């Protein structure tokens, strides 16, 4: 990746497109502090991640960032509800009635009320993806980074997941940065960024001028 200079507006819904190998996942991982850039700075909430310790980065990930991956990456040993609660438990705050209620609400929002006590491995792909979405919201992050969140879903689930993300975007004002090769999602985003050969090839925002 070279010469990339991007700023994302708070509360915006952004999509990143590009062919596989174009570097879009790397970009997202760097944005999400999962990977460190060889040079350059990532500034999240006004703080430069370059100068952060491992612990500070862990805290940042836990409190300000939510990740949704293509392969949903749930903890298979835990139930849907437990997976959703996990970011909260990682934050070491005591789990209260209220937290559990909130986790349940999130599961309701993603439409998984009935299967919330199922083990993650016993759920369908679409369900798992929705658990992952609920999980990413648990700590009310400012930013949600999603890498092909609908990558292995059928078109019905894709639509549902998209609607869900949009709803959350509007309801909580969460900033979304989504990698997708699904044009149905990309064309509905407020901003489309195309990455090609590690550079920004295209960057258009939907602001009806």
């Amino acid at each position, binding site marked *: 990746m070279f010469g990339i200079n991007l700023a994302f507006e708070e509360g915006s819904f952004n999509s990143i*497109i590009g062919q596989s190998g174009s570097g879009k996942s790397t970009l997202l991982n760097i944005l999400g502090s999962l990977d460190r850039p060889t040079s350059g700075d990532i500034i999240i909430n006004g703080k430069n991640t370059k100068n952060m310790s491992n612990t500070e980065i862990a805290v940042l990930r836990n409190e300000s960032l939510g990740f949704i991956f293509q392969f949903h990456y749930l903890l298979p040993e835990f139930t849907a509800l437990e997976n959703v609660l996990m970011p909260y438990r990682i934050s070491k705050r005591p789990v209260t009635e209220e937290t559990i209620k909130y986790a349940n609400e999130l599961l309701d929002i993603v439409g998984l009320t009935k299967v919330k006590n199922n083990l993650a491995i016993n759920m369908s792909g679409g369900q798992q993806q929705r658990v992952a979405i609920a999980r990413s919201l648990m700590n009310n992050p400012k930013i949600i980074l999603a890498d092909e969140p609908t990558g292995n879903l059928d078109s019905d689930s894709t639509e549902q997941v998209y609607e869900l993300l949009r709803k959350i975007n509007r309801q909580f004002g969460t900033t979304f940065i989504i990698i997708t090769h699904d*044009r149905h999602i*990309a*064309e509905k985003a407020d901003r*489309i960024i*195309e990455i090609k050969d590690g550079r920004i*090839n*295209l*960057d*258009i*925002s*939907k*602001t*009806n*001028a």
Partner: protein
Amino acid sequence: MNQYFEKFEEYLSQEDKDNSVNYVLKLLDEKLLTLEQVYMELLVPAQHTFVCKEEDKEICIWKEHSRTSIIRTILECTYPKVIERRKSINKIDKKVVIFTPSEEYHEIGAIIVNNYFQIAGFNSQYIGANTPKNDIILAIKAYKPDYVAISVTNYYNIVVTKLIAQEIRKQYPHVKIIIGGQAFLQQGAINQVEHDYYMIKAENVFDIAKEV
């Protein structure tokens, strides 16, 4: 707003195809409206102002389709008037190829712009909506146009339009590229695509005509 629009809109909202078509053709025949007025003051507004009523929510997409179909029919029916108009104007010996890029299904704009090119005296050819990049290149090879006009409505299609423009520039550097359509109203969109002319309205083609 055009004085006849209200009546036209009424027929359309009833999905009364026959009356819609007849009404517009009558206006043209009686020379109450010019061809341009029909396009710009009846057809375009009819499409742009289409709003879905709350009670029609479920069949909304069909209403939209059905209206588009009526508009299309009218558009096709006005073509004899285009031919007529061409008799009275000076022909420009320049060829234009018009299309919408792949995955772009919105074609009413492209068809109207094609008619404008005709009226302006160009030798223009609409080669279709949703045209794959390779076919566009082949069409340019076959027609040897002086201009290509690309109509893009959905802003996502800027991505592919950018590639198409690049390819045309590479293979046919002398061909002038004209871009237009709602997609370019989005921030930063125009700069993404290589072009010689960007035009907001269909009547802007007359400016090109003047240039030549």
